[in-house]
């Protein structure tokens, strides 16, 4: 591939130019990058966006001298990852891998994070939404879907991932624009819903073209792209069928707002180069999506437009709460039942000490807990989507059962108390260790894993009355070395590095 090499050569040249520019123009920031760059990914290792990010870190070696690391910060559908990036300096060394689902996350969670907290520097993948059907059933085209939906009068089943996600919002949009009604059946993940479609448990699955690859019983009925897709020339678009529906799932990268423009430009350029790398293009094509590159301006416009749309359909679906009914004030805070428990415990201990043993305390604590849980479920919003069983039903069931079992245990124990032989317990040692652990975990954030462990291990061993100092030193050193080589070097799992040292 001579063209490829020429390209690489050009890229190198351009990169050098960029470097030169950076060096001459900005003395204040030095050369960027001068240390490893981290991409923060919101999902677990092995997920689609994680694999894509790791591939980018691999490809980037061609275009930058610094390494790019991938770090997974899972939780809260992306909130934890967003908070991580916003908690760092706006220096371009921490990049957030973003997908369109972040828009819903920002709208639905109450962390106060908005799209304005980020600079959306590069959109790299555009994956059109599509309606997928099981081709061994009678419903094969968009017309079939519409006909069947009308015949079933709102009972047609559409399968897909969780409520409020992109695919669900897309389904609502389709129903709205076409003028049909159907039922959204949410699954934990896309593949569970695909399996259900293959098992003919519903009529339509809302997903992306990649979802049918290798699955011969599934076909695309219609795609929401502007034009027909290269890989699926026989699949019509919504536009052709007369419905103005266009929707893509995008993936890209964002950085914290306030990053110096030069660094921003550097990163934008870096992603631009990666976006036209043949390895990257191959990978995106393999996953039946479209490799694209939108720079900051166009990407930001896309994000703003999509947020508007998402807000509209989230409200329509009854998921996004309007201000009026989102107030949860007036709720009894969780420390109230805790205090109640402590008061009753102390009183019992004073009046009838033989009753205040561990088992009775647990049973009593569970009774309070179940009442409190039941109380909390009273404040749950039922919402339009729940059907016959709402979000409160199952927790209430567990709470009632817990109440009954705990009450039964308490009753049994009070009626016929068992005699305990006094167990010889050395609780001081346990409490001491718990205290040590607390300091160990708290300190981790400041002094990092290795130093904290280097202090905790000998301290813990000494606390448990072991006095062979040679063994203590060797164990500590061995443990640190082993964890460094196995965890950090071979398995490349990042451990806390400590905020004091960088």
């Amino acid at each position, binding site marked *: 591939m001579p063209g490829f090499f020429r390209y690489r050569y050009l890229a190198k040249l351009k990169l050098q130019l960029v470097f030169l520019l950076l060096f001459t123009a900005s003395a204040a920031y030095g050369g960027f990058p001068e240390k490893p760059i981290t991409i923060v990914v919101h999902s677990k290792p092995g997920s689609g966006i994680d694999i894509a990010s790791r591939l980018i870190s691999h490809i980037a070696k061609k275009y930058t001298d610094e390494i790019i690391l991938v770090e997974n910060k899972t939780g809260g559908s992306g909130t934890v990852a967003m908070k991580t990036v916003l908690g760092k300096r706006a220096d371009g060394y921490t990049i957030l891998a973003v997908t369109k689902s972040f828009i819903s996350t920002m709208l639905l969670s109450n962390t106060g994070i908005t799209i304005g907290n980020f600079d959306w520097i590069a959109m790299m993948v555009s994956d059109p939404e599509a309606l997928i059907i099981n081709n061994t059933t009678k419903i094969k085209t968009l017309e079939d879907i519409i006909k069947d939906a009308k015949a079933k009068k709102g009972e047609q089943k559409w399968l897909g991932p969780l409520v409020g996600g992109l695919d669900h919002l897309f389904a609502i949009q389709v129903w709205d624009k076409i003028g049909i009604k159907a039922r959204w059946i949410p699954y934990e993940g896309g593949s569970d819903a695909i399996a259900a479609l293959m098992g003919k448990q519903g009529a339509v699955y809302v997903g992306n073209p990649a979802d049918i690859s290798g699955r011969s019983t599934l076909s695309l009925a219609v795609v929401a792209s502007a034009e027909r897709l290269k890989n699926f020339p026989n699949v019509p678009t919504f536009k052709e069928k007369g419905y103005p529906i266009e929707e893509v799932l995008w993936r890209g990268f964002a950085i914290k707002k306030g990053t110096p423009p030069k660094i921003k430009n550097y990163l934008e350029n870096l992603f631009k180069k990666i976006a036209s790398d043949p390895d990257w293009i191959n990978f995106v094509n393999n996953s039946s999506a479209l490799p694209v590159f939108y720079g900051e301006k166009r990407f930001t416009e896309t994000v703003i437009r999509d947020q508007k749309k998402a807000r509209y359909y989230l409200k329509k679906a009854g998921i996004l709460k309007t201000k009026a009914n989102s107030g949860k004030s007036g709720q009894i805070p969780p420390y109230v039942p805790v205090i109640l428990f402590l008061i009753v415990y102390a009183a019992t201990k004073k009046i009838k000490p033989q009753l205040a043993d561990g088992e009775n305390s647990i049973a009593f604590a569970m009774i309070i807990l179940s009442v409190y849980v039941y109380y909390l479920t009273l404040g749950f919003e039922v919402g339009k989507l729940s059907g016959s069983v709402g*979000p409160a039903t199952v927790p209430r069931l567990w709470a009632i059962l817990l109440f009954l079992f705990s009450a039964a245990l308490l009753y049994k124990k009070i009626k016929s108390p068992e005699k305990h032989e006094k167990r010889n317990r050395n609780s001081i040692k346990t409490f001491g260790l718990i205290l040590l652990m607390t300091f160990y*975990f708290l300190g981790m954030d400041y002094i990092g894993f290795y130093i904290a462990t280097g202090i905790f291990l000998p301290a813990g061993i000494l606390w448990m009355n072991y006095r062979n100092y040679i063994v203590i030193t060797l164990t500590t050193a061995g443990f640190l070395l082993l964890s460094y080589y196995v965890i950090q070097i071979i398995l490349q799992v990042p451990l806390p590095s400590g905020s004091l040292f960088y």
Partner: protein
Amino acid sequence: MDIFGQLLDGIKMLVGWEPILIILAGVVMGILVGVLPGLSPAMGVALLVPFSYGLEPLYALILLVSVYSAANYGGTITAIAINTPGTPSAIVSTFDGYPLTQKGEPGKALGASVIASTVGGLFGTIVLIFFSVPLAKAALSFGPAEYFALAIFGLTITSSLSTGNWLKAFIATLIGLLLNTVGMDPFTGYFRFTFDIPELADGFSFIPALIGLFALGEIFLQIENNLEIKGHLKKISGKMPKFKEIWNIKRTIAQSSVLGTLIGVVPGAGATIAAFIAYNEAKRISKHPEQFGKGALDGVAASGAATSGSVGGALVPLLTLGIPGSAATAVLIGALVLHGLTPGPELFKGDSPIVYGIFASMFIAYTAMFFFGFLGNQLWIKIIKAPKSVLYPAIISIAFIGSYSVGNSMFDVWSCFGFGLLGWILRRNDFPTPPVILGLILGFLAETNFRRALLMDNASIFFTRPISLILLILAALSLFYPILKLKFSKKGTNKYNKEEK
């Protein structure tokens, strides 16, 4: 049969030092990943995906599949040795494996686990090769009603996990079930019991809960109870189980392999549920059910065989339908795409299908696992022999690494700590902790499928679909059988309680 010819082709693909070396490396990595709590098989496979990028597709896949195969076994090692399940499914190995270690017989437990895991793994592979297609079809007929019934059946195992007082076992299960409802409600997007903490939106991570309840809880309890017995608790023997001992539990191993494989096929059910159910069934057919939970070799074997069997099972829907049967196979799908392959039946097409190379590699991987397992056992026994006061702080550090690496979040570490305290409080008052885990695993499966079934149909669906009805009947039987047995043999129980005191 054509299939044998293709298998032979598959073996030919693996001739040469490079593929063999890759398989061996994969098995060692797999055991290592399994041993480390927090690194689940799925995480292990995922961490090696970028590493496999430089390899050619077949080699990359046999590396990842070898890691997956061995990781499930690796988890049982730490479960037996230090009561810290290295992988979620290995939790069942702690029930009897750790008591055996405490009795000074870790060699027996570790040996039985490696043998059962190898048998289960090989059985799963054979099923994968010969019965994929019909099994995958059956898996597709699993709808919400069936999943719900399976979860209810699983929950009834509580009654056999109780060690005397079944009220306490049920309370423990309900604690797990309630903790499981924390997080965003998947059906309405409503945040339940999250108290505006963003990390709670996804609920508690499972692995930190597991490490906390078992590893930390055990440490707190042991320190409190046993510190006066300084240093070594008991003489530890490295003796492996005798051939006769293994032969005696052949039925348990065979039955658990079958259960593990079949449950592994059902997407979303997974190795952990398989291990619980296999354990329950092993206890039911056992001649000495009262030994379970106190160091029964059948219990250890049931868990090992079922977890390993589930690997072959989980690959069935991946290879025949392109649908992941477990978290680790979901990562494999990503790896296939990365290497330009299409998951699903496409893998069987072409001149020399890559799939047969994978099948052949699994036989080699399990054989290698068997040998490494036996060699490694001596090493683990050495570690167990270390004084407890040195071992416990190290386990706490490992618990930190394990819970942190799940999502690189201190929140998971603190929730691991919290679960440790919960486990300790429960254990010191004779509440069993395994039911808490059962509730945490099955709560979500039960609730979402219950609600999904009702969204799709009316309530009669649970009783009109045959698989669902059978599972519910089994659930009712398995719930009341142990309780009734306990009631009818009150005398026996009393005697047994006295023995314990």
